[in-house]
């Protein structure tokens, strides 16, 4: 560092105040509600606390949807949105099943194929958004159509044109909790470090919050915008692997039931945590799946669960909204 200014010669002028930023009531409320709901189910829903329920019914499905939602989180943190996540996941799963069927690839190579496909589609999304300057809504909407068409094209390789079955090894892995939760944990840790602790995360968040200032600060904004889509694509591919392995088959439309989760969880996390973060997304995933699972055990029909899910979401957002209004009024 060049000494253009006197203090830089290490004339430290007293330790400055290290304060906390203002308390995040949303987070406290979120955790409190989570705890309350957990306790409620532990008492009311028989078998809720059993290991098989917690691991297989709660954490495993939450893990699958958390992975795709974490990819979306990265994009949203960078100021974008990706409507095509579920379709990328389906396409990656289908493509890997197809190459495995066609070329008898070993499992790791099969997974690699999925990652490459996911990354490629993500890269296309990214190029169109970051370098061609097209609205991410439109770009990713087009990719929804494109990926869907490609899925049909690949499915022509299937015997009767419907679905491709995965090798038995993979199917075995897919129902294994270690595999599923492991994949999710791995993705989470990487992304947590990347977004929350690394310098790249700072760049991405700066781009997401004020792309102009980021540019004036010398951050290659286009590159980092592009990167968020690539990371998202790869996450989708991981989720595609987890899902197709779990189902034992890949077919046109695989993953589409996760579209809403991918959209909702990051935003819910943002509402609770006050910013887009993978920890917020993971928390939201566990929260939502806990509610669904608990309700299910208590015998609430799937449709009523939908009402409760919607109502609960509205409730949480409402709390955060009231808090926002209250803060303004202060």
């Amino acid at each position, binding site marked *: 560092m060049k000494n253009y200014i006197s203090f830089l010669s290490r004339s430290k002028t007293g330790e400055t105040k290290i304060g906390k930023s203002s308390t995040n009531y949303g987070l406290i409320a979120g955790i409190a509600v989570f705890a309350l709901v957990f306790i409620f189910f532990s008492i009311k829903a028989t078998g809720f606390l059993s290991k098989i329920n917690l691991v297989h019914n709660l954490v495993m499905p939450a893990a699958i949807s958390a992975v795709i939602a974490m990819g979306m989180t990265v994009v*949203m943190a960078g*100021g*974008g*949105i990706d*409507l095509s996540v579920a379709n990328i996941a389906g396409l990656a799963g289908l493509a890997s099943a197809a190459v495995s069927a066609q070329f008898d690839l070993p499992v790791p190579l099969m997974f690699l194929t999925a990652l490459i496909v996911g990354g490629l589609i993500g890269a296309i999304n990214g190029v*169109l*958004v*970051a370098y*061609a*300057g*097209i*609205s*991410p*809504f*439109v*770009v990713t*909407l*087009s*990719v*929804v*159509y*494109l990926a*869907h*068409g*490609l*899925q*049909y*094209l690949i499915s*022509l390789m299937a015997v009767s044109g419907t679905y491709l079955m995965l090798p038995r090894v993979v199917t075995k892995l897919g129902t294994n909790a270690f595999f599923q939760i492991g994949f999710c944990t791995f993705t989470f840790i990487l992304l947590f470090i990347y977004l929350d602790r690394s310098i790249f995360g700072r760049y991405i968040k700066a781009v*997401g919050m004020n*792309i102009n200032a980021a540019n004036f600060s010398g951050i290659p*904004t*286009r590159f980092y*915008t592009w990167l968020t889509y690539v990371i998202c694509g790869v996450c989708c591919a991981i989720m595609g692997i987890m899902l197709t392995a779990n189902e034992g088959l890949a077919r046109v439309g695989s993953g589409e039931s996760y579209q*809403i989760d991918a*959209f*909702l969880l990051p*935003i*819910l996390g*943002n*509402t609770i945590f006050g910013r*887009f973060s993978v920890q917020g997304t993971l928390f939201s995933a566990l929260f939502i799946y806990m509610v669904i699972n608990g309700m299910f055990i208590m015998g609430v029909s799937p*449709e*009523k669960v*939908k*009402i*409760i*899910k*919607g*109502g609960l*979401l*509205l409730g949480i*957002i*409402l709390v*955060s*909204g*009231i808090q*926002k*209004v209250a803060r*303004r009024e202060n």
Partner: protein
Amino acid sequence: MKKNNGLLQKYAVFAILILLFVIFSICAKSFLMLDNLMNLLVQSTILGIVGFGLVFIMIAGEIDLSYAGSIPLEGAVFASLLANGKPYFVALLAAVGIGLTISFIVSQLVTRFKLVSYITTIAMMFLLQGIWYVLTGGKNVFLSEEMLNREFIFGNIGPFPRIVLLYVLLFVLLYLLSEHTPFGLRLRAVGSDPESTRAAGLNPILYKTLAFLFGGVIFTIGAILTTARMSGALATSGSSLLMPVMTVAFVGQTFLGMGRPNIPGVFLASLLLAMIDNAFVLMQLPIWSVPMANGVILISAIFLANIGKNEIIQIKF
């Protein structure tokens, strides 16, 4: 800062529409037949009308995806009342009433509690789908021809189906309302910068609420037309509209280089989508090619409209 009024940008999507029309006329036999063209118009109607509703809310700077939940609900109420022998206008009023109530709740959540409209309306969509289930017991409600008086809606006046005339009428009215009236101008102002609206002495809460209510009424019109077209209220009628309606609203933004939500854009975009669907079937192209073509055409249209702009567009949450 950069001037961006090039002809290409301005008319790119329009040009693609014309170009595709010409190509389809040549390649797809019977594409140009009056019957088929009328079909095409009818098919774009519901999409376009629901798109109008969404665009009105987008002009006011918000988004409302709850239509995927409210359309089946309104449809079901409308259809059940008709099926129970209630007069047409009672069923109509009930549906509109429900639409207004939903929109009012959404608007208050968004404006008073400052909730993000994306997530609020998605949550609302879930809630409404659940309520739909409880109300209907999970059954599609079908209506017979007599109960529905389908002919009244889909019958022709001259060569034109009534529904198409309704569509064009709505288009003209909503276009005037959004572009030529103080109300439309103020909605745009509220949408572009709510803080400044306050400074200009306009109440952003009022205008946003009005936009939501207005959108809600248009969604209800969409719901009733869907019910009529499908001869009943189907569970899937909302969710299958979700994506296409968003598509027309967003593609519509690029029409005529406006770069903002607008009514003519939705009109043309709904025609474009219906045309692609229609012609691809006529040309007997393989199934996978329809979504692919949709994607490619969408992206290239917008790419052309965007040339030279080249700045990253960011979404506000």
